């Protein structure tokens, strides 16, 4: 035991004196201008950001989403889901309502109780699907090397007036042996409406002309999707899907886009694509 008298203090001091610490010097953030994709098919990210116009911390969350969008470009698709307590309309100027049946269903299904919070491809990161904004980037890094199993090609054509058709061709890049569901949604960008905010630049706690982007407007399909594959989807096969839908008169067509994603029975997003409406 005499050895212990020296050995243990040795272990102890090794642990304490050589305790590791990384001191980071400014700038603390990397250059985030990476741009879009290069035509190669990649596994894309769907960030479902749960938010509300009365959620004062949500603009900071949206800023992080915007930074990530700058970094990942088209590889990242964002949907702002206005649902829950902070999305409930109250007195003017917060009397408008961005809630949708689809957003409310997602909010309930995934047990969202706080905002801002988000899901990334609905995959778990560090044991949870619901991620605070600060961990969105790390979660993307953790899954960014996953090979894409599907490719989605979208086309939007005008049928008449506000009536449109979206063609969503799903190509299997590898064999899939599971149920697959397709979900199609309409988003709108550039909506100028009041937003609560916590920031010293806005001592009133409000921005009256806040620009809301990626706002979930409507489901073209059911939010739980149309089952497009029962059990087998062999590599190389293309599944063609078409949906006709109507845009609301109050929406600005040029600001609208269609998002289509494919998920499995665990509701994990396998691939996502976004297409803006082209207005002549």
């Amino acid at each position: 035991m005499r050895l212990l008298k020296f050995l243990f203090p040795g272990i102890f001091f090794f642990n304490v004196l050589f305790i590791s610490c990384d001191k980071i010097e400014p700038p603390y953030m990397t250059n985030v201008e990476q741009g879009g994709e290069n035509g190669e098919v990649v596994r894309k990210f769907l960030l479902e950001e749960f938010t509300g116009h009365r959620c004062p911390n949500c603009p900071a969350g949206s800023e992080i989403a915007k930074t990530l969008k700058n970094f990942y470009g088209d590889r990242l698709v964002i949907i702002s889901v206005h649902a829950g307590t902070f999305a409930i309309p109250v007195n003017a100027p917060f009397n408008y309502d961005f809630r949708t049946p689809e957003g409310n269903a997602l909010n309930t299904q995934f047990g969202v109780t706080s905002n801002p919070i988000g899901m990334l491809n609905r995959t778990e990161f560090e044991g949870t699907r619901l991620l605070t904004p600060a961990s969105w980037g790390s979660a993307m890094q953790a899954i960014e090397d996953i090979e894409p199993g599907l490719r989605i090609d979208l086309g939007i054509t005008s049928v008449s007036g506000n009536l449109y058709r979206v063609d969503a061709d799903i190509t299997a890049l590898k064999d899939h042996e599971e149920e697959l569901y397709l979900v199609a949604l309409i988003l709108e960008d550039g909506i100028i409406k009041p937003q609560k905010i916590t920031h010293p630049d806005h001592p009133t706690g409000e921005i009256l002309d806040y620009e809301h982007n990626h706002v979930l407007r409507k489901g073209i399909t059911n939010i739980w999707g149309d089952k497009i594959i029962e059990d087998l989807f062999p590599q190389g096969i293309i599944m063609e899907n078409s949906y006709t839908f109507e845009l609301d008169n109050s929406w600005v067509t040029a600001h609208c886009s269609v998002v289509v994603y494919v998920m499995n029975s665990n509701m994990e997003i396998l691939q996502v694509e976004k297409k803006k409406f082209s207005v002549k």
Partner: protein
Amino acid sequence: MTTKGKFVLLTMLLSSLFFVLPATSQELLPGARVWGNFQMDAQYYQSDTVIGAPDVPEKILMNAFANINAEYRGFTIGLRYESYQNPLLGFDNRYRGSGIPYRFASYTQENLEVTLGNFYEQFGNGMVLRSYVEPNLGLDNSFDGIRLLYRPVSGVTLRTVIGQQRFYWDLGPGIVRGGDAEVHLNQAFSRFSDAQNQWIVGLSGVSKFQRDQDPIYILPENVAAFAGRINFTRGGLNINSEYAYKANDPSAENNFIYRHGEAFMMSSSYSFSGFGLLLSAKRIDNMGFRSSRSATGNDLHINYLPAMTRQHLYSLTGMYPYATQPTGEMGALAELTFRLPRGSFAGGPFGTTVTINSSIANAIDKQPLNDTTAIGQTGTDGYTSRFFALGDEKYFQDFNIEVSRRFSRNLRGTFTYMNLFYNQNVIEGYMDKENVNAHIFVADMTLRLERRRSLRWEIQHLSTAQDNGNWAMLLVEYNISPNWFFAVSDQYNYGNDDSDKQLHYYTLNMGYNKNANRFVLGWGRQREGIICVGGVCRVVPASTGFTLGVTSSF
């Protein structure tokens, strides 16, 4: 089979040696000891939309756990089985399921204690490291790894730990390494052994490692924290103080700022017969320390920031409890206890004990780094702060007086007055709630009856113009010592501005104790609220239904 699975199997096999055949084991292993405990809390939920109780599809939810430990000649093994079928409302759903999240083996030989597997540990006051379990909060940040404790000479204790922390049924992503040295100077140096002044000093260092996977932030993968402490005792006087420093640790909790963290606490007490005085103060600045940058709530805390407010036990005095703010707070507490002698005018024939307690928690001073950076802006150093300067915002204030008096041989009572200020936005995370100012009165009377019976009743009242308005409460409890109790209570929110919410929250409870076993059966309404233990809190949603609690130990 995984390494973890093998370890569990081995532990269970070893355990069976001790307790499957207890009589035999005692005979085979004289001196072997087996001990443990069991707790189960179950609730049958009834629909009650009036109080906003969420729908529970399972109808019945249950949390349960059992600890089983065995010891033989310095060798100890133990495990805890937990079952959440499914977790009770208010507990994180990630606990759903059953399993053995805690198992360990340890032995002690020649002043060296070695623990393999799960363990709890605390360095000093816990400001750089404390792992503990608190089932009522759904909190368990135990380590899974190695712990060594060594006492090379009398009065000197060295500890070192390395491991990952429990994260529901998994482990957190960070690896925590730490060491602590504590020296009781009077024991370590024989010439001071008879001195009246007793000194204990300690030093701690803890570091966590977590990979940087972030595409935007340049994150420190290793974050260290250090602390130094001193404890002085002389007669009835005790002074305990600790300072902790943490290096840059951007995380979800601090909005990814790179400022260092620091914490200071000082607690002093002085007591002699019939008199006690406690004075405490603390300052916390960006001192949240977790083994995952993205962790929030009660997940993966490495350290513990001591609460410096009184923990109230009555329903209405505990309605607005304070939760420690790791991003920054300054707080102080003073408590004076004295006894008015029996036979005096003020003390009455049986004596009276008076406790006066006051505590306050305030924001720390925070100034912007420059004209273009907001305070706490992500990806910056956050802010500057003067150590002794107070911030503008008050978080919490509590002034209370408690008088305990025996009126006769059979009747005694405790009377409490509390004046409260509660910043709901900061403490509960809202933005548009009013600060609560409340006056609370409690009378708690106990009448001893014949044949070991007693009757206890509480009358409580909370008056406030904010939040849900005034509350009144009555509780009556009949005890048949030592086995039975029956209680009925009602909390009435008669002052709610919304007449539809002027509701009664009534409960019926009965309990039976027999030796080390306790059964409690109840029915009633639970109002939505917060429970806190030591400044760490959990939200309790509203519910109605039957409850069953069983605790047992052996």
